[in-house]
């Protein structure tokens, strides 16, 4: 059969535009699929900033720190000298609560822990990856306030994470040339990674 001298157009005039749109759209979609998680994990939403966490005991920092004026170090006793700040033992809590609110239903899980000799399983708010070694003592000795990383815990009912504690968060201070402590040499890898 012979070809028609004036064939019917296979594509409409808009087909090229649609085609370009689809190709560009596909590239953008793939790019977005790759970039979206990278952007997402950098958001405070992903790291859970500001999300209050329910604890086994309704412990209220506002009451202990703001109302009663108890210093952070009374409970987090190794924070000034050691790597770990320390979470108070049941015994430390019972030191006061043996007498203060001894019958309150709020402190019932505490008394249960003491009586059954079962530790309280608190939820961890601030965690670093296993390959990061952080030392609380040196930061406190250098005059870094607890609130710089942990936020305004004295005004938190349930404690939430104040910062994402990413490597960028650390370097923002460590690289700061404005900082009078001159710690820019403490940006070498083994300061934190060993």
């Amino acid at each position, binding site marked *: 059969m012979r070809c028609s001298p004036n064939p019917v157009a296979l594509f409409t005039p808009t087909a090229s535009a649609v085609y370009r749109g689809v190709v560009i759209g596909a590239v953008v979609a793939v790019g977005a699929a790759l970039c979206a998680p990278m952007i997402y994990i950098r958001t405070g939403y992903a790291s859970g900033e500001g999300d209050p966490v329910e604890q086994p005991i309704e412990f209220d920092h506002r009451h202990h720190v703001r109302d009663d004026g108890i210093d952070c170090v009374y409970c987090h006793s190794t924070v000034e000298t050691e790597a770990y700040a320390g979470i108070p033992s*049941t015994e430390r809590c019972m030191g006061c609560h043996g007498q203060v609110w001894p019958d309150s239903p709020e402190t019932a899980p505490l008394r249960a822990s003491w009586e059954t000799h079962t530790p309280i399983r608190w939820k961890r708010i601030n965690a670093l990856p296993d390959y990061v070694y952080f030392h609380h003592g040196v930061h406190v000795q250098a005059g870094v306030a607890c609130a710089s990383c942990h936020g305004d815990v004295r005004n938190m009912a349930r404690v939430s994470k104040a910062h994402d504690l990413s490597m960028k968060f650390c370097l923002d201070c460590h690289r700061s040339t404005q900082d009078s402590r001159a710690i820019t040499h403490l940006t070498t890898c*083994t300061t934190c990674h*060993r």
Partner: protein
Amino acid sequence: MKGDLHSLVPRVEVTRRAALKLLATGVAALETGCFERPGDREIVPYVQEPPELRPGVTTRYTGVLSLDGFGYGVIVDTHDGRPTKLDGNPAHPATLGGSLPWLQARILDLYDPQRSREPTMLGQPASWAAIAAQLRALPRGPLWIVMPPQTSPTIAALLARIAARHDLRVVTHAPLARTAVYRGHELVYGRPLEQQLDLARADVVVALDADLLGTGPMAAAWSRAFASRRKPEGGPRSMNRLWVAEPMQTPTGTLADERLPIAAGEIAALATLIAAEVGVALPASLGQTAQARLGERAASWARHVAADLVAHRGASAIIAGDRQPPVVHALARMIDHALGNPVVMTTPAVLDPLPTHGLDELASAANPGAVLVLDCDPLYTAPHLHLAGVLARSTFSLHAGLYANATTAACRGHIPLAHDLETWTDPRALDGTLAIGQPTIRPRFEVASIIDVLAELAGVTLDARTLVHDQLRGQAALDVFDTAWTTALRTGVVAGSAFRAETITPTWRSPATDALAALLAPPPANTVEVALAPSPALHDGRFAPNAWLQELPHPITKQTWGNAALMSRATASALGVSNEDLVRVRGPVGEAVLPALIVEGADDHAVTIELGHGQHGPAIAAGIGTDVYGLGDAMILRATVSKAGGTRVVPRTQIYMAEHGREIAPLVTLAAYQRDPKLAAHLRGDQASLLPQGGDRFKGVQWGMTIDTSICSGCSACMVACQAENNVPTVGPEDVAKGRAMHWIRIDRYIEEERVVNEPMLCQHCENAPCEYVCPVNATDHSPDGLNEQVYNRCVGTRFCANNCPYKVRRFNWFAYEHEDSRSLQYNPDVTVRSRGVMEKCTYCVQRIRGAEHRAIVDHRAIQPGEVVTACQAACPTGAIQFGMLDEHDTAFATMRASRRRFEALHDLGTRPRTQYLVKVTNPKEGA
């Protein structure tokens, strides 16, 4: 051999659909895995805080390990109640702060998942209480106890109480027991005595088939004393001279100034000749026989030794090896006496130095009654006695061991033995010093210690702590006892408990002459000497389940995972074999087939084979190497050796040992060094370079390491210490053979004829580090204090750095070698556990440096010189490794760094390494 690791990696056929699923999962994992949500992990504080424990802070306790009865004082580092690292206790006479490979590796045994976990009786699970009840109710009658030598006074007291209840026969059994030493001393002193050596006072040391720096109950302490006399920079008496005669090179032999390769069976003749030359009154015929038996080279060597000994009268030490026959030890004491050497003889610490009952006696007992086998494996170590028969005839049999082994199966009952860190003990060191071993962890399963078992037999209802405590109280004044007990636990030794020297002189008597004449008789024709030797890592085989020790390269042959027939090049060519060819060894009792390995410096008339391999017990030890206990019941055998056909791979970490004139490990004589003290000057200092030199890259404290090759015996304690400190994995024999061993520090060995140098090789922390230029992701970088840093979480595993490292010290994780079973409890929490695909290498123990910095900041002070001690430095028994700040003064590190022997390995590359070495200096005798 177990399956190749590659077979463990599943082969997956990935379809396109599966690949897309994996991609989606990966993106999801990226999203959720990078950040934990608050509350995902828990914090579980104590209910009541133990007073001495702070989370994340290392707590140190004293402890004691035992080997063949002798105590080795250790300091136990614990993290949150878990012991993680051992080091020698500086206050304990057997270690003086130094380590041995097995001492470092014992921490792994504590968490070994292969350990026997539950008591059994007749193959059924039982409880310790039930077995203890059976022990208490044993009928009065014959009771055999087979155990290694013991030194504990508590055990002595319990045995006395058991003897009052039962017809007790204690069989002291250890393949490497020092019975020959005690018998030898009995020959000349009339009773078994122990010699207490002071190598620091000896100007001339003669080791006759004695690896005094590598094995034996005082190896670490003697290494320290010996090294104190190897300072070529000191005054005229600062360098001693070491003469070594041995069939196979040992760590001691690598440090020899004058070394004679000689068969172990010829040592008696050599000692006779030396004795005759220095004036020991021996029958003249013995001297002539000895002279006739030795070749001209050995005879001349003996005369040179004798001349040197006479020139240093009263200031020498002659040591015969533990496996040498008694009369050689007797001769050594006679030589000491003739030279007026200050010999200190004491009571032996061992309870039963000349065993009253032998294993053969037990084997032939018709009605043995009850048989208890504690902490040993006689079915493996004495196979020719066929003890299974007597165990079957017994009315009751019990095996107590850390692992289930060949003996376990032949016994009715089995009880897991407590590890030394899980129980109370009180062993003595060789010099009698008592140390109280305290548990540093509660046993993870039901175990009993030897003291627990003996207490049940003695009908004593007290626990081990009370028994040890009361035993010590019986020896001390009561009013001060509580302080004494606390002090003993805090310092790790009981002050003043060493034995006093006996005033006694040796006399040569006719039984000694007869014994010596018998030894000097010519050996049977058509046989070759096969000298059995302790394994430097596995000892008599008791440490075979320990992967760190299995994978520890042999100090001389660099073999891992197994043993071989070690022979000289001449012996090998006479047999028509080369490396890894199988040979058949026919001993007086049995035979063995194992690969040949050529060792430079081995004697041409002896084949050396190490014990402790070829076990059938715990998983990783099973089938590794060849068991040679069956060859005969002596350490020095006459055997026939022939080519067997076939080969077996010998996984080694170093195959070429020649330096090819490249001055990588220089060696000079003392005389040459004194003539030209600047002879190392061309091997250090700046090189012309286009790269930035120093400059402002380096700020503040600068770290460096100096290693004295003069006093490195190659013992390899540093390698295991590094493994324990830095969570370094083992890879198995197949991967070692492929060059994938993971040790961060290795001991390179250079040997060309008489020149032997041990050179510990670790990351050199080059100021111009070749690895850093080639990393595409900046995962290796330099710190302002001069460390070459490796950042695991940044490494993508291109391995460019390892290829560009001229020292070949970088290690790649080809597989996920880390473990998640109970061994992970040993991991140092201050060091990242690496996984597959990551490069790693020596960090100069950066966790210890940063830890010291943190302590200094908290205390508002500067870091003190000597405050940072690396794991290898702490373990080194000779103090060859020193670490410190480049600007410190008046420390061991500063003195070594200032030495004119200092050189840089591969100096011509201009890498400016921070790890530097001191040239090896030997002190040979002029004209010898």
